[in-house]
């Protein structure tokens, strides 16, 4: 279990699935500095209690914030590796925090990476923070173990997709008649689509690797590629957020 690329963690079948086969046995020598940004104190306390036991999880919570201004101040001061960011925040929401922390994210030495955490099911919320620069999106019903694994995944620069996010992305990149503006960014490859489908079906990365006869690393690189496309594509559907379901 010490090889970080081979964790049992899922891509956060965010809604609690997959907890059964997570290990959660010790830190495996991992350590990550985290800031919690959420306007609900109860929730911050809960997360702190669940993942903040550094000896067991390897997660060290170095700061907390309850609104946008506070978040920017705390993140700038503590320079954490990962920020758990709520989507709905007073003062402009998670997107605003991402916007104001853009220089920190782009830092070559030690970038600050963001993992969005929300109760929201709205596509524009989910996609909004991803396009804002978050490296993943999980819902608050995620188990502690899965959340810890997701945090480490983000720390390593990988993307964390919940089944719901995968569904939204598939919807957003659905085959339309509109010609792509940028072939590289506006289309998902067949492989990427397969990976996303399996995530949406509740598979962990390891299971996806087995299913497609590829390595976990390859799965991760596919997911990261999708994340990049999601953040950079100027596809009409992506920017306009047609949240209505596609009736084929």
């Amino acid at each position, binding site marked *: 279990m010490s090889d970080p690329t081979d964790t049992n963690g899922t891509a956060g079948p965010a809604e609690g699935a997959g907890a059964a086969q997570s290990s959660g046995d010790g830190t495996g020598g991992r350590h990550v500095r985290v800031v919690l940004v959420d306007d609900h104190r109860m929730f911050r306390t809960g997360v702190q209690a669940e993942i903040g036991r550094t000896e067991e999880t390897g997660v060290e919570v170095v700061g907390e914030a309850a609104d946008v201004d506070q978040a920017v101040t705390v993140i700038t001061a503590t320079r954490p590796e990962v920020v758990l960011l709520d989507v709905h925040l007073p003062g402009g929401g998670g997107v605003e925090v991402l916007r104001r922390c853009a220089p920190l994210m782009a830092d070559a030495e030690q970038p600050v990476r963001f993992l969005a955490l929300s109760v*929201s099911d709205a596509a524009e919320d989910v996609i909004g923070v991803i396009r804002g620069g978050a490296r993943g999106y999980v819902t608050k019903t995620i188990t502690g173990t899965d959340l810890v694994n997701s945090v480490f995944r983000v720390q390593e620069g990988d993307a964390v997709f919940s089944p719901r996010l995968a569904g939204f992305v598939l919807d957003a990149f*659905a085959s339309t008649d509109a010609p792509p503006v940028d072939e590289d960014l506006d289309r998902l490859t067949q492989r990427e689509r397969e990976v996303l489908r399996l995530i949406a*079906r509740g598979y962990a990365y390891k299971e996806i690797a087995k299913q497609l006869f590829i390595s976990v690393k390859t799965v991760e690189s596919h997911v990261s590629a999708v994340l990049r496309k999601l953040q950079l594509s100027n596809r009409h559907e992506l920017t306009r957020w047609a949240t209505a379901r596609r009736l084929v």
Partner: protein
Amino acid sequence: MPEAAAMPLAEPRPPRKLYRSSDGRWLGGVARGLAGHLGLPVVWVRLVFAGLFMADGLGALLYAAFWFFVPLGVGGVGGQKPPALVGTETAPDGRRRLVARKPDKGQIVALLLMVVVAMVFVGNVNLGSGAKAYLLPAVLVGAGVALVWRQADNARRARWVEVGRRRRTLTLLRAGAGVLLVTAGVSGIFVLQGSAAHLGSVLQAALAVLVGITLLAGPYLVRMTQDLSEERLMRIRAQERAEVAAHVHDSVLHTLTLIQRNAENAGEVRRLARAQERDLRTWLYRPEGTGKEEADEPATVAEAVRRNAAEVEDKHGVPLEVVVVGDCPLDERVGAQMQAAREAMVNAAKYGGDGGAVQVYAEVEGRTVFVSVRDRGPGFDLDSIPADRMGVRESIIGRMERHGGTARLRAVPDGGTEVELEMERAEKTS
């Protein structure tokens, strides 16, 4: 408009309040409102007013008093078509669009009637020759006041009827005309008291006073209208909030009560919380333009999958996570697939629910509808099921094959079972 009065009454029906009618009115809607209130035909009331007008102008006074004191509302003769004289459109919801450009025939008739009645009045009533001279200015003043009042009424009625987009210029013109008439009338009276030579100075003085009043009261008026519109906006917001609250309020409180009562029963608590969460999410994140109330029968794949998952979740107390990509209307084949998917969900919840949430994925791509139901339970082997147990074989596999689809059951390497259902839609419906 709240119809009920505040005071409790012995009558089972709340008393009708008197409003002036904003529909099909000729002047101020007084007669129509009264008629509605008293349950008499409008014509009678109008005739009575006209008759009283003969009685030393009592009718006019009464009418003016009513106009001034009775609020404009949606009272009056309800459900009755406005008289044929009135040439305005009545919308199906009983609201009448005010056609600002062309005056109602009714208004012209009313005006003519008034002139006739005034003639009769002047002829009948013996006024002193001095008083007669004052009649024209007085009439002018009256007309001006009536015009301005009616304008104010229209503004008020616009809030009722939400006419909203009326031409501002016209409004201003009407108000201006009213003010002008009043000014002319008052000046006339002054000139009569003095002499024509003073007309210029009187007019100048009147103008100076008007400008002064405008300067003094203008800012207040502007601020007042701003406050009013802001208040209106706040009220709309409050209404929306109230709507959300009304929906959420009862059901959440109810659920919380039940959770407290069932605190010992973990499964029940979980089920209640899930059901409430689902309800809330449905309400919060429903696509724009869809109703808040669920239809009796789901019409599309997404609806059907969600509905089935919700029912299974409620019945078996196991969370089902649903992700749907794309959507299409249901046809007979896809309907059968939905039935099969439901069976698969029930099985997953029954036998694989211990391993955590069941993941349901549905995708519509082109003509293919794909559904997968995946649990993380102990898994099961189709061959080990006795042949007389037809559950899975019939209700899932058999059903899919009969309708020309395919069903695959397989054990997932890391534990659990996955059911994959694939169906081609009957025909292309774009």
